[in-house]
């Protein structure tokens, strides 16, 4: 039972981190009808900025964290203005490929800066408790992961209020429903696109911090963790924020349970599932869900007149 709870705790924490990336994916998809593959790169760039400010420049960590997150949002905004804005109206496949190019560009520059040695972000989490963890009834909870979980919940609440109550939130919803109608109503769609990318950049950098914080460290391979949020978006439905969160938790829990119970399962069924199964399992779940619900669990079902 303890191991089950441990796997659950780790799965929920992973899900919380994935959800921060996944919400960014969904926001951009809803606004621009395209998946941005630059999100994982923005996540690690955010972590790199925090590390650079806190470690290389000696700025206090909490200030570095806030600055790093805001700078990543700003970078994201600049990317939208520079690369994406001219692509409005172009085929979504072209735009998606462009975001892959942006992803590679950002990571190449960042990788050169990172080098081979792991980069520490300078956060105090590893100093709390037992190397950054506390044990409750035999279950080890990491402060960084607990923070990720509550940050995820906080972000979801704030975004929900923002979309319902604020002028720009309502404008974003209108833009995501119908860009031309939004334009006709006087909404500055270009500004909304920029705002969406700014928020997505902020969310990505928050995820980047939780992925690389503590002794996880930032290395050239850290972006892979952010990439794992993609099946979560598909499971939840490309255009649903709540779906992204649910999908992320499903992915996180799957990864956690498979990680802890794969060997027991293999013993039970007498078949080896292979070394990479914990990362394959979320995709199997994704395929299964798409077979039943092609639009994802919470995606908007489209009706087409033939």
């Amino acid at each position, binding site marked *: 039972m303890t*191991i089950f709870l*441990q*796997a659950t705790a*780790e799965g929920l924490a992973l899900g919380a981190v994935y959800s921060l990336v996944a919400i960014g994916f969904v926001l951009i998809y809803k606004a621009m*009808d395209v*998946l941005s*593959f630059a999100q994982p790169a923005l996540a690690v760039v955010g972590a790199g900025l925090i590390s650079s400010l806190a470690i290389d420049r000696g700025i206090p960590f909490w200030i570095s964290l806030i600055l790093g997150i805001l700078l990543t949002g700003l970078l994201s905004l600049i990317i939208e203005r520079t690369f994406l804005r001219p692509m409005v109206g172009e085929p*979504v*496949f072209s735009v*998606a*490929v462009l975001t*892959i190019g942006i*992803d*590679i560009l950002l*990571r*190449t520059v960042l*990788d*050169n800066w*990172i*080098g*081979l*040695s*792991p980069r*520490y972000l*300078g956060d105090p989490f*590893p*100093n709390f408790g*037992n*190397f*950054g963890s506390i044990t409750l009834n035999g279950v080890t909870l*990491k402060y960084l992961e607990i923070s990720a979980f509550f940050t995820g919940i906080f972000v979801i609440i704030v975004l929900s209020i923002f979309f319902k109550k604020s002028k720009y939130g309502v404008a974003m919803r209108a833009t995501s429903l119908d860009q031309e109608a939004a334009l006709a109503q006087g909404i500055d769609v270009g500004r909304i696109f920029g705002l969406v990318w700014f928020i997505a950049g902020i969310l990505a950098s928050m995820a980047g911090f939780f992925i690389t914080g*503590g*002794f*996880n*460290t930032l*290395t*050239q*391979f850290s*972006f*892979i963790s952010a*990439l794992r949020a*993609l099946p979560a978006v*598909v499971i939840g439905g*490309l255009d649903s924020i709540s779906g992204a969160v649910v999908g992320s938790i499903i992915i996180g829990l799957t*990864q*956690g349970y498979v*990680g*802890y119970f*794969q*060997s027991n399962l293999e013993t039970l069924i007498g078949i080896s599932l292979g*070394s*990479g199964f*914990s*990362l394959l399992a979320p995709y199997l779940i994704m395929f299964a869900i*798409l077979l039943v619900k*092609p*639009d994802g669990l919470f*995606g908007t079902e*489209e009706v*087409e007149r033939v």
Partner: protein
Amino acid sequence: MKPLRKQGIIIFSILALVLAACGGGTAEETVEATSETVVETLDSPAVTTASSVKTGVGVTAEPCPEAVGGVPTGADPTKGCIYLGMLNDYTGPYAAVAPALETAQRAFWLWANTAGGIGEYSVAIVEGGDTSYNPQKHLEVYNSQRDKVAALAMSLGTPQTLFILDEMDKDSMVGAPMSWYSGWSYKSVDKGLVVEFGSAYCADGMNALDWALASLPVDIKTIGIMGFAGDYGNDWAAGIQVAAAKNGIEVAWEYLPPTLEFDVAQAVGLMVTKPVDAYFPAVGPTQMAQVAGGAFQQGLTPIAMMAAPSYNDAFVKEGFPLKALFESGAMYSMAWVAPYEADTTAHQTMRATLAQMGVESASSFLVAGWSSQYHLKGVLEAAYKGGDLTREGIRRAAANVYVESDGMMQTRELGQNRADNDSYINIPDGSIASGARLLAPSYVGPTAESYDWTSGPCA
């Protein structure tokens, strides 16, 4: 949106994700090794002294340039020049260490040229080409250098070097690897072209377990192995499996996914659900810190015997969160030579030469670069003695010659179809510039001692 269009986007997105992931990481490719016996028709050039020297591609009567890439060659202007190729990774995952590797190699030849060179020739490494740790680009860079050089000072990466091996075979191009795959010691794999140096991961794996059993005050009965499949993980794991079988140790689990599929949660999960007395990681620094830290948080501190690529001196730098764990006495790292500070003639020469060049670092990659050139130097000297500095002559020399390294590595007889079996065992130590204190130099455990090294590569 139309359902078909949305499904198309999903399918496209997944494919693009896979492509993006492969493009940014260290995708591994393997080439099936072909078996070819190198016909050795000459006596050992090492014991033959010719009166005239036949030369070929990459060897000129004109002197070497004074400097290449801003680094002096130390070449004698009255001597001819032997040019060496350089297949380095300037933009891929090893870009950060490329300068250290290359600096040390150029420093080595600066010293060697100053000390007399290769008979009537000095040696110069040409401008390096960027392979990006990508087999296809590796081949492109090789093609750009193949008509200019007599041998390769460096071919970085196991899968990458395997990828160009057929082309090297056509050219009779000998080269020093920058990897420690056990296959480099066997003609069935390397066609007698790769001038290996230092112990392979396989021998390191055997020695890691034997040394831990013999030297640590821990009763080791069960172990776990983790590593990257397709790269150094398989060779390492094979060695440990042999040692475990010989010592009657239970291998509780073996976790060997490809590099990009390594899941820290699963690695920690294995350690929690199937606790072991010791584990043997051959991963990267990222995974190493997360696995060791994650296990420690759950109250697990088994002995860790790390393959060389797993350890990074950043782990014991001031401020690193896990410094205390890495210095706790539960973690050890393997290496093919002693650390930078070691007291051999070769280490002293290396430090003096690098200091003369203004290099202020104790990086293990400097040691890697420097040590990689000793055996190649021995091969060139043998070819010169044999009066044949053509590529074919250099290849024949590489097939049958004793090479030494001023104490950095054991004297080795190349071309004997058997790998070296000694390893260096270090303990992380932040008080030393290289971050590693030597515990056991040139250690050969009972498994590596009795293993039939003529049986071929471990993996």
